[in-house]
């Protein structure tokens, strides 16, 4: 096309070679070999070398929902049925003393766009079904007969602000909105609260509010509330100033509303429970992203008073994260290793220590953990509810798959499990925030067909 009268045309092949090399670099960024998640379950997860991407892998399951006759799968001896459906992004569950089930329908505040990347992330979340309306309400489901067919469904509390955690102490019902804990008066059997709430304390909320869910757990004596407050970023990309009192488990005095940091360095503590045998506080946490398909494993851990669990400076003890500057070697030296890895990017969002008797004997001591599922790993990981057996107050074996089938063979998502709760009859309840259903897992009675509809 061009007349070749340029003398330094020898430059061109060199440039072309450089272009090819650069293009190759881009492709190398997509090369990704995820290991077997089983290698990262338990007390000693295998941690590969950290890698940084040119283009972080994004792999989300397309949401197809549940067909009329479809439901998750459970092993022999269990059955699963929908308790109720037609919710709007049900995120967490709470069972009141009379057996009423509270379904928190919530989807977080709108994320601000501070970088071009946030626009892309928005598209990915939309694809993954995470862009449902934030309903900001709690729905009550009443199933007095305990047969899994509710007789009553009412709007229990409305006009909340991205609620997640709920805790009842006596006649005080606490709701953890994303920016505050609010107390409401509750009478036994009440099906709807219209009384205005009273703010107990502010919680770290907007304007960024990256990890918005605030999980809530009352102490056994009711004097304290424990709150899981997630970080305001993946790895401090919004500045360390945005992380003030975040990535922490708060202890809030119920009488005064005063708080202290009970434990810190926990990137996103999404579930808190008391271990029934030892009375210790346990948490599930979502660890950091974008340093590899097998980093960093999410975990289940006992929470030590005053403990520091690494985020953002390090993970699993003293494994440094180079993305944080300035570093804090003084803190890293004190970083605790979590008790039990759940494998990478499974996104644990629900925790239930099982104390009931409704399920078969092999589930009577341990923790159910719901794994919402990965969005940045190939193959996908999570998208199920697992059971971690405990003995003497400690995990005592590998996690077992209990509720699966949220993903189909083509990696399409029927649903994604989030909040867990154990109902009055010992059934395990699962909030499914893209299937918009609450599932109930119970023992398959002799004679009945397993997972019959």
């Amino acid at each position, binding site marked *: *096309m061009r007349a070749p009268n*340029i003398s330094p045309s020898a430059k*061109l092949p060199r440039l072309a070679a450089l272009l090819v090399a650069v293009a190759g670099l881009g492709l190398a960024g997509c090369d990704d070999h995820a290991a077997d998640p089983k290698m990262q379950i338990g007390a000693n997860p295998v941690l590969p070398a950290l890698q940084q991407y040119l*283009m972080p892998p994004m792999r989300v399951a397309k949401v197809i929902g549940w067909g009329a006759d479809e439901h998750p799968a459970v092993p022999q001896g269990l059955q699963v049925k929908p308790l109720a459906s037609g919710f709007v992004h049900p995120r967490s569950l709470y069972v009141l003393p009379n057996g009423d089930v509270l379904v928190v329908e919530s989807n977080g505040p709108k994320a601000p766009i501070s970088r071009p990347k946030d626009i892309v992330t928005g598209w990915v979340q939309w694809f993954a079904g995470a862009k449902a309306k934030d309903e900001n309400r709690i729905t009550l489901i009443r199933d007095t007969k305990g047969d899994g067919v509710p007789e009553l469904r009412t709007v229990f509390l409305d006009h909340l602000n991205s609620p997640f955690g709920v805790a009842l102490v006596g006649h005080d019902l606490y709701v953890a909105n994303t920016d505050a804990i609010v107390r409401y008066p509750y009478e036994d059997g009440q099906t709807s609260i219209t009384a205005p709430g009273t703010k107990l304390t502010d919680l770290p909320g907007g304007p960024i509010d990256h990890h918005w869910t605030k999980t809530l757990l009352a102490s056994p004596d009711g004097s304290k509330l424990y709150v899981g407050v997630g970080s305001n970023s993946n790895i401090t990309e919004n500045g360390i100033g945005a992380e003030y009192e975040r990535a922490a488990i708060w202890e809030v005095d119920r009488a005064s509303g005063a708080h202290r940091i009970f434990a810190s360095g926990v990137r996103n503590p999404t579930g808190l429970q008391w271990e029934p045998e030892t009375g210790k506080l346990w948490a599930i946490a979502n660890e950091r*992203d*974008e340093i590899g398909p097998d980093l960093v494993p999410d975990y289940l851990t006992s929470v030590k008073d005053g403990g520091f669990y690494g985020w*953002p400076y390090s993970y699993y003890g003293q494994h440094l994260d*180079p993305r944080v*500057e300035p570093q804090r070697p003084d803190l890293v030296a004190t970083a605790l290793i979590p008790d039990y890895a759940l494998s990478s990017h499974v996104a644990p969002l629900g925790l239930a220590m099982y104390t009931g008797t409704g399920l078969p004997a092999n589930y009577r001591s341990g923790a159910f953990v719901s794994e919402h599922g990965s969005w940045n790993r190939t193959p996908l990981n999570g998208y199920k509810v697992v059971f971690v057996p405990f003995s003497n107050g400690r995990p005592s074996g590998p996690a077992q798959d209990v509720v699966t089938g949220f993903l189909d063979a083509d990696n399409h998502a029927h649903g994604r499990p989030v909040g867990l709760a154990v109902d009055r009859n010992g059934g395990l309840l699962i909030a499914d925030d893209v299937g918009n259903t609450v599932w109930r897992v119970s023992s398959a009675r002799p004679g009945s067909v397993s997972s019959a509809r």
Partner: protein
Amino acid sequence: MQQHATIMDATFSAADLESAAKPRGRPLHKMLVAFSAAYFTGALVTDLVYWQMPAVLWERFSIWLISAGLVLSGLAAVAYVIDLVTGREIDRPAVPRAVGYALAVLLSLINAFVHSRDGYTAVVPTGLALSALVVVVLLLTARVGTALANRSRV
């Protein structure tokens, strides 16, 4: 102008001769190229500041500057095609300039991905190095383009 027309006659292929014979106005793409180059250079400055003082504000300046530069370079490519089609003036020699600029844009695209990482390593060291490399490529391109143009004039 007279001399310029002569050079064009010598360098244009036959297909282009018709339009080249009568250049119609200033090229549209030049300003867009200059703007994108300025944005890419700005990103080097904000990267250097972030390197010295890692506050996220500077990192965000960098990624928006690089992104804006990329958007403008896309527009510049469109404008370049319009210039060719409508027969506007195009600085000679066109190919080394275009290749140099394309390389700078490609490196900036990679740089945009690096700058989209979370935290310090979005800039130090790879992002900063790429920002500097882009500026070097842009400077070399401008210099080589000018040198070749002068040489042709002799």
